[in-house]
């Protein structure tokens, strides 16, 4: 007899929990045993007793929290089945950021896949998404509205390069999340033939060095020295989104404010942040890819963790797939993922 999906996975205040394996996935509070999908700080928190994750995710957590971020760690080789309690788990690339993985849990002939954050679009800095057929698919819905269709990233990066050519006396300050997006933008710039140094805000430095040590070529990426800011006319500078508009950016010569994010698709969003050159580059699936992925997994049941749950649940329901929103809290609240407040709500300086 096949197990019910809730025997394999349930929702607890700490996050998704597997009773048969006695572990949590991406818990938002410290737990005994955590399986982590990827290194963004809202999914990968410190203080768990033991952590199972891909090698890259474990290293990213060590870069962020120090080597003692958990009492014990175990590496999950991609594609290999591991026995945890009474279930089998398998990590498969999710295409979100370096080291990101989906986690498939199997027991009694039922397979549940927790996708974490994922994208289907090409990314030179991480392994591509691999489809895992399943019975229950747990998906995010950060961009779960049909207005979100991410364009070709190369065209977006060319926008940046065209602007840098048209305004050579101004510096271009690009807001991008420190893990994943920043390095992806750098890699895309290199793919388009940009060979000048790409300047980094101090907050970008360690993770960028980590990407380089993993063999991802990002070229010359000097850290911006405060005294030299005023001399960076014509330069491309990458910084955390919260810095694009603040005191830090003031010393640059007449900066063009850019922001690389899927949110930039919506004009009001870009204007609210004072962005002058929005770059629609996202590490999440757009609407079409969310729908396509759900269909391709063959799942008869879909749980939507966070983001624009309602529209995606509506779509599933009208396409004969059982679906429910989990309204999970705690994801994307640090501005590390592409989470943003509801339209019209306070954006604040730290968003």
């Amino acid at each position, binding site marked *: 007899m096949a197990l019910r999906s809730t025997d394999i996975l349930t929702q607890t205040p700490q996050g998704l929990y597997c009773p048969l394996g006695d572990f949590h996935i991406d818990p938002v509070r410290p737990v005994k045993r955590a399986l982590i999908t990827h290194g963004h700080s809202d999914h990968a928190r410190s203080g768990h007793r033991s952590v199972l994750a891909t090698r890259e995710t474990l290293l990213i957590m060590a870069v962020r929290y120090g080597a003692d971020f958990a009492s014990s760690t175990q590496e999950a080789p991609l594609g290999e089945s591991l026995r945890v309690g009474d279930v089998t788990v398998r990590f498969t690339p999710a295409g979100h950021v370096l080291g990101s993985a989906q986690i498939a849990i199997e027991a009694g002939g039922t397979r549940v896949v927790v996708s974490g954050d994922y994208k289907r679009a090409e990314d030179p800095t991480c392994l591509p998404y691999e489809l895992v057929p399943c019975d229950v698919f747990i998906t995010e819905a950060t961009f779960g509205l049909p*207005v979100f269709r991410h364009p070709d990233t190369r065209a977006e990066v060319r926008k940046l390069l065209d602007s840098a050519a048209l305004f050579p006396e101004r510096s271009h300050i690009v807001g991008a999340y420190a893990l994943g997006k920043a390095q992806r933008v750098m890699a895309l710039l290199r793919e388009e033939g940009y060979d000048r140094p790409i300047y980094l805000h101090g907050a970008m430095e360690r993770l960028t060095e980590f990407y380089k040590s993993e063999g991802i070529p990002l070229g010359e990426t000097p850290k911006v020295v405060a005294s030299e800011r005023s001399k960076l006319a014509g330069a491309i500078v990458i910084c955390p989104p919260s810095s694009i508009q603040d005191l830090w950016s003031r010393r640059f010569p007449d900066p063009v404010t850019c922001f690389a994010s899927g949110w930039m698709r919506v004009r009001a969003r870009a204007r609210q942040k004072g962005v002058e050159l929005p770059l629609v580059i996202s590490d999440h699936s757009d609407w079409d890819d969310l729908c396509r992925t759900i269909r391709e997994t063959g799942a008869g049941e879909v749980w939507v963790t966070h983001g624009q749950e309602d529209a995606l649940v509506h*779509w599933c329901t009208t396409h004969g797939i059982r679906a429910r929103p989990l309204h999970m809290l705690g994801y994307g609240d640090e501005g590390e993922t592409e989470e943003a407040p509801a339209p019209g709500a306070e954006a604040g*300086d730290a968003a």
Partner: protein
Amino acid sequence: MNRFAALLDRLGYEPRRNAKLRLLTDYFRHTPDPDRGYALAAMTGALMFKEAKPGLIRGLVEERTDPELFRMSYHYVGDLAETAALIWPAPGHESVAPASDDAPAIGHNNPPPHVPTLTEVIETLATTSKSDLPARVAEWMDALDETGRWALIKLITRELRVGVSARLAKTAVAQLGEIEPDEVELIWHGLEAPYEDLFAWVEGRGERPESGNPAPFRPSMLSHPLEDEDFAKLEASEFLAEWKWDGIRLQAAAGHGSDGRPVKRIYSRTGEDVSRAFPDLVEALDFEGAIDGELLIVREGRVQSFNVLQQRLNRKAVTPKLIAEFPAHLRVYDILFEGEEDLRALPFAERRKRLEALVARIGDPRIELSPMVPFATWEELAAARADPASVGAGPDADAIEGCMVKRANSPYLPGRPKGYWYKWKRDPYLVDAVMMYGQRGHGKRSSFYSDYTFGVWRDGPNGEELVPVGKAYHGFTDEELVKLDRYVRNHTVNRFGPVREVEYGRDRGLVLEVAFEGLQRSTRHKSGVAMRFPRISRIRWDKPAAEADRIETLEKILERGEKEVYPLQDKAAKRQKG
């Protein structure tokens, strides 16, 4: 179309004038004829086609999308054109189609749709019947990407609004060559989209196009503000003075076309043809040449305040009722051409005589001379400026905002030449208000809290409270901006996106001395008043917030000017009551 879309997209986010100019020039330089000409026409409002209604767009989207998904999306995005552009299910995007629809996905086995050029779109719009329009628009929407669709909707609904004035677009064209924008303005009215002759000329490949306009605009001469320290350097006897009217600067030009018919036009200060808004004034232009003056509303021989004039401006429909209620007059002060004769090189005093003679010949009360203000010394002029009524301005004194001081031998020169014309404005109104909110600026100021909302005291349900009365973002120096920015950051009590609320109350808060030119009633503001040209004149670091002004101070200023806005209605109302 894609290139035009990319331009509009970029312009929509760019606050800096010079950057906009560069984007426009770059577009004109790299876009072939006739596309660039049609783009110019779109931005200068020179395109002639019947615009599409937003309902057409909505209808097309509703046919193609799940209504629930469309509703959620529209709610999220907040703008119909943008929602339509983003949600449009282009071929291959069947995931927003209504699920119950069993029809095969559109265009799956068809060749990729043809992306229209801007020229194709505009030429098709001019010839497409209303009933064929939806199908055409749908074809284009299928072929374009998100930005392209957004630009298409903006274009066909005539809602471009990307912060580019006609003047700026023409300036960008002029910059393709070494040509002054005014030169483009001079010939503009003889030109037609797609302006291939214009581009050929500015790029040095062709002759200067004939103006073809028997009543062309000539660039206006502008003045400099007169500062206190200037008087020591200026000899009063070399100058003449007129009142400075609180109206709208206009140039009236009249001639006759090759067919002998009279051509009469009215231009704004920047050369925009505004004739259509003032048919009553156009009718009075019984002369040939070009004269320069101020648009004023005159009722029963008395010049009305700017508040009254505003009721006549920016109206889409100029009805007989509007004309009767707000009769437009042109109070003239200079003459540029008389017939074919160019008078601009003559001294101002000479031109004035020619103007006086011309106005007498026209003999229409709607075209009248702006009187001279006699004076022998600067002190005398200062006295006149302080009290215009005392030197013959009579009941018009309310519409006077100072004096124009012009060198008697001044030629009429385009632009703002130094040393000839000065404006000596009446002192502005001043009010002490308390800063309530700071908002981030744009462009160069995007890292500064540079726009300040301020309030004055009034009696509230719980005692005295501050009510916002305006917002100002200039008047201070760069050093003061740094201090104000720091003040906002250090006294923030609340954050709303780009806005911060600062501390204020009877015993705390920063007092700003705000200068402004006038007040109007406003239903959009909580306080019921709106300021004209507010700016920060001084930062009163020393003044306690409790000593800032009260709303009654503003009410008094308001009462002076407002009774006259709708006198005909008032009279009608009284009659009804009576």
